[in-house]
Structure formats: C-alpha cells, structure tokens
C-alpha cells in the first residue's frame, strides 16, 4: 500500500546572518495512513521543522514531500493554504486560540473556508466539541477555560473540517501530567476510532508512549524508529 506521507531526500536549511544553517539532511521517511507517530529528539534536532514541512507551513530546501499523493513543492502559497484547510488539522503547544472569540467561534474558523452554510457549520462545531467532551463550554472565551480544556478546544478546531492528518506540536508541553494524559488519550481515541493519522512532536517520553510509532531525530537526521504494535 502506498504510504500517506512520503519524504524523499528532504533537506532544509535556514539563512541566518548570511550563513546557511542546515536543519534537516537528506531525510527519507514514510508514514502510513492510520499511524500515530511521535517525533522525538533534543531541542534543535529539527523535529518542529519536519512537522512544519509535513503540515505545509514551510517548504523544503530540496527533496520532495508528498502527502496523500500530492507533492507540496509545486503548490503556490495560496494553493498550499487551500490544501492545509482541507487536509491538515493543527494543534499547538500554547493552543493558539483567538482570545476574543468564544470556543465555538474558534472551532468554527476552519469551516469559514468551506462552502458550508451557518447551520451546517454550527452542526459540525457542535459535533467536534462533543468529540472532545466540551459541548457545554461552547460559549466560553479561551480565558475562561483551563489549559486542558483550551487544548481540547484546539483539537476540536483541528478536527472540525475532517482533515486526513492531525499535526501536533508539543500538544501537552504546557499541561500538567494528569491533564496531559487526558489530552493524549483523546488523541489516541481519534487515532483508533476515527482513523486519524497523527504526527506529534514531543520531548516527553510518557507522551510518546501513547503513539503507535516513535521516531527519533538528532541533528537533522533520523536516528531510530520504534514500532509499538497496537
């Protein structure tokens, strides 16, 4: 079966003060649909960069990133934005909810980019909030939510447009152990019961245990792959 995500000879370097700083070196990677992958590694190892490339937030310096048969390199930034809207859901360490909008309005944001009418959007938002167990918090502002609740709203936002892929950058980095476990359990459920492919950057080994696969990066190179059978 063809992998959902294929990286071929992907290099990434940034220019800093006239100098080229390499981050990823000729990386090859395949991720199958339905995987829950934890990307691990020390700071500066390139895990967030890798995540950004897969999520279509950033472009590789060379090599190709193909997601669900779509090569990302040829896409213009506008096309890339469209592609993200349809295919990827993002979860950030600091939730990145818009503080001025209610939870429901935050979750609704990706749906604004679809052709759905407001009744349909409201149904989807309600469903997504129900999945993360926050149906009763729809009208709350982010500041009125606990960290765990805020992150679950963020996950609902990532889910609501039904993307193939969830991309999570340290989703539990700002949460205490217990809340973190709840969020990770939620991700695990989404992976197992809804078949979402999830890629999660984390430096927390406990968090990584929730994943089906663990990938270790160091200095821009893959140094190990662990598989944990479901």
């Amino acid at each position, binding site marked *: 079966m063809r992998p959902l995500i294929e990286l071929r000879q992907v290099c990434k370097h940034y220019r800093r003060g006239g100098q080229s700083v390499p981050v990823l070196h000729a990386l090859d990677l395949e991720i199958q649909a339905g995987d829950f992958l934890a990307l691990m590694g020390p700071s500066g190892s390139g895990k967030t960069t890798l995540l950004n490339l897969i999520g279509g937030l950033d472009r590789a310096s060379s090599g190709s990133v193909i997601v669900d048969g779509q090569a990302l390199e040829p896409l213009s930034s506008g096309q890339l*934005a469209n592609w993200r809207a349809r295919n990827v859901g993002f979860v950030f360490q600091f939730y990145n909810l818009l503080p001025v909008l209610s939870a429901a309005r935050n979750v609704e944001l990706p749906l604004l980019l679809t052709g759905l009418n*407001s009744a349909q959007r409201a149904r989807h938002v309600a469903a997504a909030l129900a999945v993360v167990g926050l149906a009763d918090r729809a009208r709350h502002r982010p500041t009125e939510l606990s960290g765990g609740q805020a992150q679950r709203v963020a996950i609902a936002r990532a889910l609501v447009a039904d993307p193939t892929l969830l991309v999570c950058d340290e989703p539990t980095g700002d949460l205490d152990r217990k809340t973190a476990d709840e969020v990770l359990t939620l991700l695990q459920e989404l992976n197992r019961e809804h078949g979402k492919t999830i890629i999660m950057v984390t430096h927390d080994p406990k968090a990584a245990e929730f994943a089906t696969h663990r990938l270790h990066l160091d200095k821009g190179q893959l140094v190990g792959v662990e598989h944990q059978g479901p």
Partner: protein
Amino acid sequence: MKYLPLLWAALWRRKPRTIFTGLSIAVSFLLFGLLNAFNQALNSGVELSGSDRLITTGKYSLTQLLPYGHYQQILNIEGVSRATHASWFGGVYQTERNFFPQFVTDVQTYLALYPELVLPAEQREALRLNRSGAVVARTLADRFGWSVGDRVPIRATIWPQKDNGNAWEFDLVGIFDTRNPRERGQYEMMLLPYTYFDEARRFGRGMVGWFVSEIESGADAVAVGRAVDEQFANSPFPTRSQTEKAFNQAFLKQLGDIGFIISSIMGAVLFTLLLLTGNTMMQSVRERIPELAVLKTLGFAGHQLLALVLAESVTLCLLSAAIGIGLTGLLIPLLVPHLPGGFAGMTLGPQAWLQGLGIASGLALLVGVPPALRAQRLDIVQALGGH
C-alpha cells in the same frame, strides 16, 4: 458575512484603543460636518437666489444712490415683467448688537417679486390699506417679541428725519415667513415703507439704493441686464445689472476665500487623524501577528487576511465617521436657534455625507493597506516561532 464575528471580535480586541480611536475619528468628522454645514449656510444665499431676478445697482458701488426715476424706465424695458426698488436703512433696534437688515422698499411690489415669502392674506390686505406699514420676518418677530399692531422704534444711523432726529417708528402690519424654513436665514429682515420714509427724511429724497426686476420667462437675463445698463449709461447715474445669483456670489467672495480656510483646517485635522488611526491599525496588527499566523496555518490565504485587516480599518473609519457626521446632524437643529440669523441655512446635505464618507474611506485605505500587506506577507513559521 460569515467573517463578521471574526471582524467584530478583532475590532474589539482592545476595547479602549478602539473606542478612543473611534471617538477621535468621530470628533474629527463632527468638525467636518459643522464646517461643511457652515460653508453651506454661507453659500445658501447663492443657491437660493433666483436667476430670473436682476439686481441693478450703481455702476461703481452698490452703496451708490440712484434716482427713483430709473424705476419707471426699468419697467419699460423689454423683458422686465415686474420690478421693485430698495434702500439700505441701516437702523439700530435698541443696540448695535441686535443687528438685522432693514430695507426701505415698496413692500407690496417687493413681496410680489419674492414669492418665496408668504404673508397671511389679512395682513396682505392691511398692508394694501396702510401705506406706512412695515413687515418683518417671523424669526425676528420671535426674537424681539413683536406682534402685528406693534409700533417698532428704530434708531437711524444714516437717515435722519426732517427735524434731524434719528428716532423712527414703524407700524408693524405683517409678519412673513419663508415657504421653505431652510431659507429663513436668507430673508431675516424688515421691510419699511418707502413713501412714508421718503417724505419724512431730511435729505436724499427721491433716491433709492438699487432695483430688483423680474425677467419674463424665456427672456435672457444677461441681455435684459445689458439693456438696463445701456439705458442709463449716459445718465449722471450709470448702473450695473447682474442676476441675483451673480450678485450674491460676488458679495460672498468679498469675505475672502472661506473655502480655503475650511479646507486648511480640515487638512490639519485629517493629517493628525491619519497618524492616529494609522498607529492604531499598526499596533493592532502587530499585536495579533501570532493570531494571524494561526489563521494562516488553518488555511486562510494571504489575500483573505489582507481583506480581513482592510475590512477592520474600513469598518472602524466608516462607522466612526458616520457617528460623527450623524452627531452633526443632531447638533445643528440644536445650535441654529442660538446662532445669528445668517446660520439658519446650516444643513447637512447628502453631499456632505457623501464627501465625509468618501474621505473616511480614503483614510481607511491609507491606514489599512500597510498593516494589511504585513498580514498578507506574514511568514507563519517565523510568526509562530515568536513564542
């Protein structure tokens, strides 16, 4: 429309800032509205004046006196259907501060030439019977508490009576109003009876200030005016005739370039506003860079963010400007009764709204485009890395 909550929320992100900026814009457009209405009032005389009326004054100055004898000759000129004459009385009621114009004229023919002035039928009749009767504008009668039947004392500054006295008294037989209340400022005046005045004055008998003639419909006002002036060109009292519109326009010009003063003030105000609003929009976008980056991550395209920020700027500017201009509209009816009669024509026309909102849109684009471009070009990775 579905972006409205997003737009609204962004606008209210920092309530005090939005409110203060909005208030500044509103206050500026309040000033714009007032100055505009003031200019309107000054120009209303020109707008309202009929182009079918001809004013004939002395050739060298409208303060020259002309012989009453010109009157009959003007009536005989082809194209003139009716005419009247008038003189500046220049009297004072109680104190110089109570200034209002008094014209000595043949009141009946004067009113016939100005159908925009209405006098109740029974007062019209009384005027016909009493050749020494005066009439006054409703606004003045209200201001000084006069009613029909009163004897109004006016102290002359130009025309003494035969005994050298300056104390004139006139019977008030009528109070007229304008058909259109907007024109009240234009006709805030008192009309005094010529025959009575001419017999009682010490000097200048048989002389009047100027003539007003009505041009037959279809006749060319300018040509008729030329005919009038040719008639008197070789007399000791040559004349100059202009349409009432041209006459009023020329008079207004005497005040100087008021339009220039008003645009200079507005220029200073708008420049300040540009800076203020521009700073607000820049700040607002700068603060929201991470949020805008999130939107971009979620798949919002650059042009959508551009539109979002521009819409924010347009909403803020247009809404505040509309509030300011609207306030002017509410304020003017409250102000006008406390201002001199010349301000009665202060109004806020659709042209003022159009111009004001046009300026506000220009402002919105000027201050909105730079931060909107910044939002459009936002680099997600860098913006999110800000944490």
